[in-house]
């Protein structure tokens, strides 16, 4: 079910939590809201669910305006950050809750509720847990119960707030793939909030990057990574070194850093006009060759092998640059000649 957000704003006291949010999600899409903490992503999700309220702007879900529709009438599946399972109910009762609180007229008979709950628990791979209490199961299992509970009301839209935030790395990876498959099989429309860029890249069809209450960029994971829309996105994603530089006469000059200039043709992106810029250079975009002490501009501090490459910390003047280099003769302590292959430039 499609979601259309137009001009959405939200203030908390003097803090602008969301500002002029424009976002359209097509039915069947899996969209990540990615941003640092405090960027407003959870607030946006809560407004969609009817758990918080906008000061301005509109939300349409499935073509229906949501203004004045309380959370309980929206029928949206919401998975809370810490799952918010009902602690006094068994897993079965948790999942059945949304069906049991329906008005008598639309409430399925108890036998059908039971069948649906069991089917869902089966689908989640946890049929054996139905009699347990939330405190008696693991974090990953709770996550599945929370998902089953949200899906029991057959929501056209699924919202997930940091769905893997409370899990350890191994469980997180397994659940991630599983959630993506579930989304496809059940033809859901899903939005999830995360601060973990790797997670957003691995799961989402499109990623919306939030910066201080605004959407800085919304694009496919590849585009967000390759063509960041502004300096914030470039800095937030892909672990790039950020260097001050000057764009003039068709080249980037890194002075006073002792780096060779880069011609404009080598750049991934750059402003049209000359002037001071910030250059973002990712780890794999560096090259370093051994050099005599007189010609060297940097010193390799330390290096360790990483998948056929060399993960190196290189001292460049007072800066330390992380570089992912092809395996070579360099070793810790070697003076070297460091140069960027390319860069993404944004006006400073």
């Amino acid at each position, binding site marked *: 079910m499609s979601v259309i957000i137009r001009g959405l704003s939200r*203030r*908390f*006291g003097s803090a602008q939590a969301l500002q002029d949010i424009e976002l359209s999600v097509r039915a069947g899409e899996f969209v990540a809201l990615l941003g640092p903490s405090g960027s407003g992503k959870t*607030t946006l999700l809560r407004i969609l669910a009817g758990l*918080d*309220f906008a*000061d301005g702007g509109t939300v349409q879900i499935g073509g229906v305006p949501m203004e004045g529709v309380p959370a309980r009438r929206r029928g949206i599946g919401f998975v809370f950050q810490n799952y918010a399972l009902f602690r006094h109910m068994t897993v079965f009762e948790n999942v059945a809750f949304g069906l049991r609180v329906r008005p008598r007229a639309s409430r399925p008979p108890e036998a059908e509720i039971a069948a649906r709950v069991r089917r869902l628990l089966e689908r989640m791979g946890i049929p054996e847990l139905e009699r347990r209490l939330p405190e008696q199961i693991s974090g990953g299992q709770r996550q599945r119960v929370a998902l089953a509970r949200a899906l029991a009301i057959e929501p056209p839209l699924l919202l997930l707030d940091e769905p893997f935030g409370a899990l350890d790395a191994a469980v997180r990876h397994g659940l991630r793939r599983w959630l993506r498959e579930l989304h496809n099989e059940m033809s859901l429309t899903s939005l999830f909030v995360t601060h973990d860029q790797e997670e957003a890249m691995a799961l989402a069809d499109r990623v919306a990057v939030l910066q201080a209450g605004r959407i800085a960029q919304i694009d496919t994971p590849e585009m967000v990574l390759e063509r960041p829309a502004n300096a914030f996105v470039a800095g937030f994603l892909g672990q790039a070194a950020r260097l001050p530089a000057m764009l003039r006469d068709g080249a980037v000059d890194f002075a006073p850093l002792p780096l060779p200039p880069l011609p404009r043709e080598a750049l991934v992106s750059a402003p049209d006009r000359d002037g001071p810029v910030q250059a973002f250079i990712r780890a794999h975009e560096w090259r370093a060759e051994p050099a005599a002490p007189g010609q060297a501009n940097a010193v390799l501090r330390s290096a360790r092998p990483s998948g056929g490459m060399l993960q190196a910390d290189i001292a460049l003047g007072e800066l330390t640059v992380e570089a992912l280099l092809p395996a070579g003769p360099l070793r810790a302590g070697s003076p070297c000649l460091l140069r960027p292959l390319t860069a993404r430039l944004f006006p400073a």
Partner: protein
Amino acid sequence: MMAACSTAFTSRAADAMAAPPSAALRTRPGSLASRRGPLPGFGLSLGVALFWLSALVLIPLGALLLRPWELGVSGLWRSLSEPRVLAALRLSFLGALTASAVTLPFGLLLAWVLVRDRFPGRRLLDAMVDLPFALPTAVAGLALTALYAPNGWLGAPLAALGVKVAYTPLGVILAMAFVGLPFIVRTVEPVLRDLPREAEEAAATLGASRPQILWRVVLPALAPALLAGFAMASARAIGEYGSVIFIAGNMPMVSEIAPLVIVTRLEQFDYAGAAAVGLAMLALSFLLLLALNLATRFWRPV
């Protein structure tokens, strides 16, 4: 008002869900409650709570604040400056402060043992601390009187030593200490429990002796809690009636407490005079709690 007494509530700092006051201004009829947050019941619960509070607490206390002024300022002064009233107020306040001060080390001892020691029967002792909370004051008064009367289990040996407890100011202080003890223990206990053991262990590795650790590390950390407990115990003891009047003997000018003066004046239908003493008690308690609260703040250089 009694800020020291609301320490039991853990008030969380600004919650992210806070609805700004301005949000309520631009809503359509009926949606005001929903603007406060996603949950229903704001209007209903606030209405019930305000009615409950006003009808049972605010309006009656309003009467207490207003009635004494019927006497006029000079009449009010005369009413309060009767030697018998002054003596009773002095006994209630000084007695309460003395009782709390004497109880303080015992309260600290009990809190310490309950938090740091593990032994069979500890839970029973823990429950016993609340006994003065749960025991009806008249029962406590009766029990203390029986125990400390000149022919009582403890009163007889004390009398042999020449110490009279029952029917003297000492008895008043004893009863006040009895009702105040749990307040001190229960205020110090959670703070002591949260006190990191590492600080003491670090002090020990730095060569501090046990008394030094207690005096320089533990007590300063507990000082605000001890003061707060002292304040609560005093507040309770100042107003205490049931457990005191049985053992006090109630001799005017000697062992008569302020609440009893109120009762006596009411029996003589001197409503304004009774209210004057009540108001004086409230005002003095308030000043006392305010002073202790300021002292606590001074102790906690944030």
